[in-house]
Structure formats: C-alpha cells, structure tokens
C-alpha cells in the first residue's frame, strides 16, 4: 500500500472530534481512519448528523470552536496538518486543499465581481502579475464550463444561476491547482440535471489533474457515479469502507444494506420500500457496543457490549461482529426480514 508511487495523498488515522458542552464531552467523530490516493474520489456517505461534514472540516482546518480535534492525525503528502497554526493552515487550504460547500453563496462574496474574486484568490496563492492572474481566471472559468467567460467576468454572484455559481466555486477551489478537494454536498442544492453537469466536471478534473477528491454527500446516486471508493459513516464512526461497486451492490454492514435498500429505484416497484426501523441515535445517546445494535436485525449479545472496529468483510471492510470468527453472540431479538 505504501509503495512510493501510490503513497496516499491524504491519510486520516484515528481521527476524533469532540465538543465540550456543559453536560459533558460529545464525541462527534470517533476513531475514523481512511486514506485517499492521488486522482482518487472517496465518497463519504451517511445520514445527517453522522459526522461527515465534521470530518471534512477537520481535514481543511475549519472546525468551528468549541469543536476540536481531540485525537488522531491527518497527513497531507506525508506531512501532519492537524496541528498547524492558523496562518499556516490557511495557506495550505488555498494552495494544496480546495474546499467546495453545499451552498455556493457562502463561498462567494456578494459585493465583488466573480472575476475579481478569482484574481484575488489566484494572487494570494500564486506569484502572478494582475494580467497573468486575469488570464488564468478566464481559463478557469472556461475550464469549469461557464459560457461567454469574458462577459461573465464582470458579473456579480447573484447574476448567476445556482449551477453556474457552483461552477464558479469550483473554479475558486481550483485557483492554485490543489492536490486535494474536499467537497461537502456540492450538488445537494442543485437540480438533478445540473447535478449531472457538476459531477461530470469534478470527474474530469480528477482525471486530468490527478486531484484527489473527498466527496461528502448523502446521495448514493452521486456516489455510485463518481466515487472510486466509499466510506459509510454512522453515529460518528465508519461503518464500512470499500470499492464503490462492492459497497453499492453487495454491502457487508447491515446498516449499509438497509441504507441501499431504502433508496427507491426505478423499475422495482412495490407497495413498500425496505426501511430501517428507528433512527440514528443522538450524540448524547449512543448505545454501548455497536452503535447500530438497537436497529440491527442481526444484533447479538456481544453487539450490546463490545464495539466492533473495521474488519475484512467480503470485498469491503466493515465494523460488524458478523465478520468476526467469534460472531455476534446469542441473538438479541428474533431475526426479522433481512435488511
């Protein structure tokens, strides 16, 4: 895995994110480890509150206090970036890591033209004169598919449609040719037709520049089309990680299976969709053992006591005792229909 050519670009190991509160410490991301290779798209999925965005924020150094990294390491091209001073991290963020968020408006300044924002960002990170920066900005707008880029240069963000704004944000993220892009729900606010355009764009960039992408979304359709590997989060932990095809088509973890089953698909109509009973626990109420045990049709005694770590499970790695030689222990409840 660590032959030099294929050394991971990003390595996250045992990441833990905490929020100190009056009623004690909330652990929002707990012992999360994964890596991303150059040119690879890692999809991160899970329901809202699972910890996807906090994991992304920890990587780009934008955790909002009092949230803090309480354990583990984050390495970019071998160098630790989780403990850097603010100024240093700010420079890495523009130059080597680009960020794209759900709402393009939060990344754009409404008072400046799109062109000016691009030129300033470029000049912050690259030693370019104004005219060269302008040329590069135009080139970027063309690259992300903004028609009539010259004319659009002098326009303000509100004069762009949602899809166009997200393209501008992608152009901004690309200004300094970053090695990694962290994209948090980049297509969630867009129509499916526009989604397809943005995804095609991200994939093209990945291919042409060998940029690595961490793509956070709760939309499995987007993941299935874009990601090389998928990490599934549940209640702050990784439930499963593996190649996209295997996670989508033959997931090992009961939660992933339930999640995949609950997605309506065209062509398979029934009077009932598969559903996972109950809901994800709040951070204050995470049960001991496997956090999924109250909802799991396979849970055994062991699941209520011991917490499973990721282990080999078929073609993926899953945090589930079903894949341990000792198994789940005596059954907790009568098995219902397979998730």
């Amino acid at each position: 895995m660590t032959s030099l050519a294929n050394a991971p670009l990003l390595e996250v190991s045992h990441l833990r994110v905490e929020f100190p509160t009056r009623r004690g410490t909330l652990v929002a991301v707990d012992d999360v480890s994964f890596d991303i290779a150059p040119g690879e798209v890692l999809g991160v999925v899970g329901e809202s509150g699972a910890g996807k965005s906090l994991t992304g924020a920890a990587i780009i150094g934008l955790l909002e206090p009092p949230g803090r990294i309480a354990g583990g390491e984050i390495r970019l091209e071998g160098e630790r970036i989780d403990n850097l001073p603010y100024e240093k991290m700010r420079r890495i963020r523009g130059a080597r890591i680009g960020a794209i968020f759900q709402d393009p408006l939060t990344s754009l300044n409404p008072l400046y033209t799109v062109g000016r924002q691009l030129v300033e960002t470029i000049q912050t990170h690259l030693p370019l004169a104004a005219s060269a920066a302008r040329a590069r900005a135009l080139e970027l707008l063309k690259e992300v598919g903004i028609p009539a880029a010259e004319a659009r240069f002098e326009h303000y963000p509100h004069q762009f449609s949602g899809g166009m704004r997200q393209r501008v944000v992608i152009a901004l993220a690309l200004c300094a040719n970053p090695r990694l892009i962290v994209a948090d729900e980049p297509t969630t606010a867009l129509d499916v037709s526009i989604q397809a355009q943005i995804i095609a764009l991200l994939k093209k960039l990945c291919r042409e520049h060998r940029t690595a992408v961490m793509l956070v979304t709760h939309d499995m359709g987007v993941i299935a089309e874009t990601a090389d590997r998928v990490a599934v989060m549940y209640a702050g932990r990784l439930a499963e990680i593996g190649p996209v095809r295997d996670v989508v088509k033959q997931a090992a973890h009961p939660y992933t299976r339930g999640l995949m089953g609950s997605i309506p698909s065209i062509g398979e109509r029934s009077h009932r969709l598969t559903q996972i009973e109950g809901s994800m626990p709040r951070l204050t109420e995470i049960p001991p053992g496997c956090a999924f045990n109250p909802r799991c049709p396979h849970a055994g005694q062991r699941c209520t006591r011991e917490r499973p770590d990721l282990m080999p499970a078929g073609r993926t790695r899953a945090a589930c005792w079903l894949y341990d030689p000792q198994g789940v222990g005596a059954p907790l409840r009568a098995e219902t229909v397979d998730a």
Partner: protein
Amino acid sequence: MPDTGVPVTRPAPQAAARPLLRLERLKRHFDVSPPWLARVLERKPRAIVQAVDGVDIEIARGETFSLVGESGCGKSTVARLVVGLYPPTAGRIEFDGADMGARRGRAEMAAIRRRMQMIFQDPYASLNPRWRVFDIIAEPIRAFGLAKSGQEIRQRVEGLLRQVRLTPADGVKYPHEFSGGQRQRISIARALASRPEFLVCDEPTSALDVSVQAQILNLMMELQRDFGLTYLFISHNLAVVYHISTRVGVMYLGRLVEVAATDTLFRRPRHPYTRMLLDTIPDLEMTGRRRAPVAGEVPSPINPPAGCAFHPRCPFANDRCRRERPELLAAGETRVACHAVEEGRLPAEERSYVRA
C-alpha cells in the same frame, strides 16, 4: 416484466367518475417589478413571473398524481393554489364538483377546506415550535369543531399519533425534541386530523435522509390504502415519483409539457424535456449508463422564450417551435405539448429506465 406486482396503492385511473380535483387553465402570475427586484437584480422595468401559466389537471379519487420538474417550474405554486394559499390570477379550481372561486359563506368554505390538507417540505418550519405536539395535532380538530368533548379530542389525537407510528406519550413533547423524520410524522398526523380526503404533499421527503424517506413514503402509502386518500404529490426525485404515483405531470416553466400514467411515462416518454429529465437520473444500478449532462439551464420565468419555452435547450427545435406555443394534445396514451411529436418527427420509443 417488472409491473406484475403493481401494488394496491396504485388503482387504475377511473375515467368515468367525477374527478376529485379539476384544475382548468389555472394561472398564477407574480409581480416582481422594482423596487423589490431592484435590490436583487439590476434595475429593470416591470417584471411578471408567470409561475403557473395555464395548467389543466384532473385527479381521480384514490389516485396519486405527481408533479415533477426542475426548480422554479411552478410545482409549489400549483400546490399553494390548490389549497387556497394563493388566489389564482386566472382559471378555475374545482374540488369534488364545487368551484373554489365561488363566493360562499364561512361555514361552507370551512367544510370544503377541511377535506383538503397540505404537507410541506420542511418539517421544521411548518410546526409551531412553542406548541406541544398534542396541541399541534388537536388544532384542526378544534378549529373545525370535529370533536364534542376534551375526552374525544384526546382520543383522536392519540389515535393519530399511533397511526403515524409515534406514541401517545409523545404528545407532551415539543417539536424540537424530535428528529426530522419524526417531525414529518407529526405534520402528517396534523394533516390527517381533520379527516381529509385529499392531501397536497409538497416535497414531503426532500429534506429527509433516504432511510427516513423510505419510512415516510411507506407510511403515506399505507395511509392511502387505509383511508382511500387522494394525493397531489410534488417531488423533483423521479425515483420517488415512480414509486408513489398513479399518474405523473411534467412541468416546465409554468406549464405542463407531458401527462401520462406512471409506467407509460417512464417507459415511453414522449416530450424531449421528459426524456432529458429521465436521462439525468443517477444510475444506482451501476450499469455503466452515463448520465447525459444536460445542456443549459431553466431560463428565467420572467421572460420565457417565445414559442415552446423549451426550444433553447431542445435538440429538435425548428422555426415553428420558436414561434408557436405547442398545446397539450393527446398522443397515444399520453398528452404531450410538442410540435415534433404532433408532426410525427419524434416517434415513440421504448426507453430502458425501467429495469426489465
């Protein structure tokens, strides 16, 4: 064939019976002229958004009619017109034969209003945060005078909570104590409190995670079976629409461009826009089908293109399309507003979105 198991929730459309809801040439225009607009856009003269621009729909009792289309095409405006949140600019809404625009006494109007309720996209915004769940659900029962005693109200509310898979004990809590999916259950219980026949559901699951969405869709299908409800369902998620609908209407810039039974629409879409929308459905089966990245975006509804509003994005557009607006006409089993279809330039073809 995948539709051997057509579920009980999707009765065949009954053509004979009187429709429960009939929309005729329904229009709603919004005046967005300056100064309101000047703040947002640059100065411009009078501007009218033709949010809904002549829509005809008939919905039969017991069916689920869905509206789909890209953001801003007017789906929510139709929903709001139907439940009376906006008055129409023109056209007619008939509910169970009664003209909703006719002058009526307060009591008579309330009697009709009781029979139709709306569920919104955002379960956070649509519940009063200062009320206990019990009172939220009891409110329509009290407002429409549907129970004789406090005891009866209590029984009704507890029954409703159970119907949506919550417990009577949840009644004393406040909305913020619930998750998104549970809050949507509360909105559904509230909508059912007045024993309506007709529910308008505007993106009821769009704010929810897929696993929660499945729970809510299952609940809605169950309730429809148990109470014979009729739904006007709005969503931009075509897979959800495929699951829940009897018939589907595709909207583009305030107008219907195609209306058909669900299977027909997904198997043999006729309108170029419907085909484009179906081409953008993410491929979860990983068959390798590429999502066709669509050219262009929805134009502004303030100055919609002349002729067929879809012509700037349409690969089949010709001169007539740029001049003359196509009407919604019968074409085989569907109704389509497209010159190419009418002229026979665009033959029906089987598409493979529906997995065989």
